[in-house]
């Protein structure tokens, strides 16, 4: 809450037209980042938090209100990939290794502003993820491989701060999917072009 209050106070110092005007520098963003995600487990608690990499491409989607009238829009479309590999539980004798690859599709909406040095923005993100998880269990000398679907929809706030063409972003997603409730915290470094 304290952070959100600071954002509001900071934003209120700018003219409103700066908030919803033309998109800031560039039309596209490329983000590469890392985070941790935690999905509800069947035993409800102690779900392992999995470190996860992601790569997102975002582009502003202009709003066409009439054939000759295209408005700049704060709405961005997101496509991307997220993945983790070799995430282990258990011991050398008994346990498992999991790897996953998910496609991502979503939108982000939120105000941004540009000052003399920094760009600052916040956003609400709606992101769907769908993909496969590979689980390799081992029990002494035996191995068993399982492949299953993952699908979830997450919503959450994000904020970013930029310098020139570079930006740093943090997002928090809360959602629900095939495995139940899910949350994810992501940090990313972005390039605007």
């Amino acid at each position: 809450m304290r952070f959100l209050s600071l954002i509001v106070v900071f934003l209120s110092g700018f003219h409103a037209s700066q908030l919803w005007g033309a998109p800031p520098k560039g039309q596209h963003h490329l983000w590469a980042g890392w985070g941790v995600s935690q999905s509800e487990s069947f035993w409800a608690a102690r779900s392992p938090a999995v470190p996860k990499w992601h790569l997102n491409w975002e582009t502003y989607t202009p709003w066409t209100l009439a054939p000759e009238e295209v408005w700049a829009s704060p709405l961005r479309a997101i496509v991307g990939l997220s993945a983790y590999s070799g995430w282990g539980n258990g011991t050398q004798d008994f346990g498992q290794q999991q790897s996953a690859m998910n496609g991502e599709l979503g939108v982000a909406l939120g105000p941004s502003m540009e000052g003399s040095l920094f760009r600052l923005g916040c956003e609400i993100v709606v992101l769907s993820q769908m993909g496969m998880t590979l689980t390799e269990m081992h029990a002494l000398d035996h191995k068993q491989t399982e492949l299953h679907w993952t699908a979830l929809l997450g919503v959450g706030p994000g904020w970013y701060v930029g310098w020139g063409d570079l930006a740093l972003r943090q997002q928090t997603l809360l959602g629900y999917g095939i495995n139940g409730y899910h949350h994810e915290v992501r940090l990313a470094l972005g390039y605007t072009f």
Partner: protein
Amino acid sequence: MNLKRLSIAIFAFGLCFLGCGPEPLGGELTLKVVAPNDDFASYELRQVQVSNVENIYQLQHANFKFLGGGLLEGDDMQNLLTSEVTPQSFATQTRSHFDQTLEPHLAIRDEVVHAQDFHSLMALSAFAGFEKIWGWYVNDIGDRSTATTEPGYVVFYGDIVPSNLLPVPMIQMDNAVYLAGVDVWMVFPVGNQEGVPYAMNQGVLAHEFHHRIFFQNVWTTSAFDRWKSILSATESLSASEQRNLNLLRALDEGLADINAIGYTKNIGFMEPSFHSEHLDVVSAELLGAESLRRNIESDFVDRATYDNLGDDSLEHALVDGCGVAQNFTTSGDILSGQAWSPYCLGSVVARTIWEGVGRDHQLLREVMLPAINQTLFHLGEVLGTDQDFDFDVFFQLLLESLPNTFDTADLCSEIATRFSSLATADRIPLCAF
């Protein structure tokens, strides 16, 4: 398809996505789990048969079911210790802190139930283990107590905190326990202990199962009020009651071990869980000490007796982990000390019984263990009179329960060796020392 039908289909799919599970699957099933070989000395991933399953997708059996995680606070237990509470109401109310269903990730292929991840494999393997063990205690040992006539519950990865004042979960790893009063078995996740996880080691599960048999026979019949007063934190225990409790805990552990030996026909039933190759030095030492205490034919148990543990005369290097030295300096009376491990004296009890059947597995399973089972109810009656407990009470009741055809010479000889102060005081009349 028109728009209305399409929207109904999408709505139904959405509902199903959120809440639909597979149809219940029960009866006799084949599970692929981690299970012991015939000698219980090694384990492997293989197919086993289980029967009387009610719904494998929620690990529900006709006799027991698995519960999900949750948090139980010691204060919640204390607050229930009123004069009106019964064993059943106490268990029901404390158990409600855990999720009432557990749905591991399972898949059916070629009519065999497979776990789809390691945690599900832990749960499914424990399920198969409990099914076999339950049957053994009923059919071979002849238990007729509420331990086997009333449903059992297994909490998978639950947490316990001692008090609201210190709400830090005692995050337990690499363990399986029976929680008396709450009347649940608890299975904890794998941490860093190599070897077969306890939840997959059927000898360990048989040990934990016997704790329920002990509790239901001894404490919930005639002695429940005494158990409540012991558990109640508002009443500090007298030195004599602390001693009674320590000895009963040792008896509980010893009988759990000897029953697990009976079930597995292997005195080293814990060894598959005691691999130390990949452990750090500290963990390996702790595991080594545990192995020494729990193996009833170890150097420690060869020499340990009720008396030399009691008067601190056994070489300290052998009793590492028993808490003996600490108790001796703080209380002056080792067996009534508060910091005391029941496993050490428990192994002495188990060894006494083992020698009492001439190290014969068949005699142990067919004669001794059923007699011990019958003894427990009578022990509860004795405790219900607020009488002090010492091992003479148990051995006298056991000797009364053994059939006339059983030769008690070895048992009495072993009692004379390992409980000599009780034997020489003529406190066990059925043994002619």
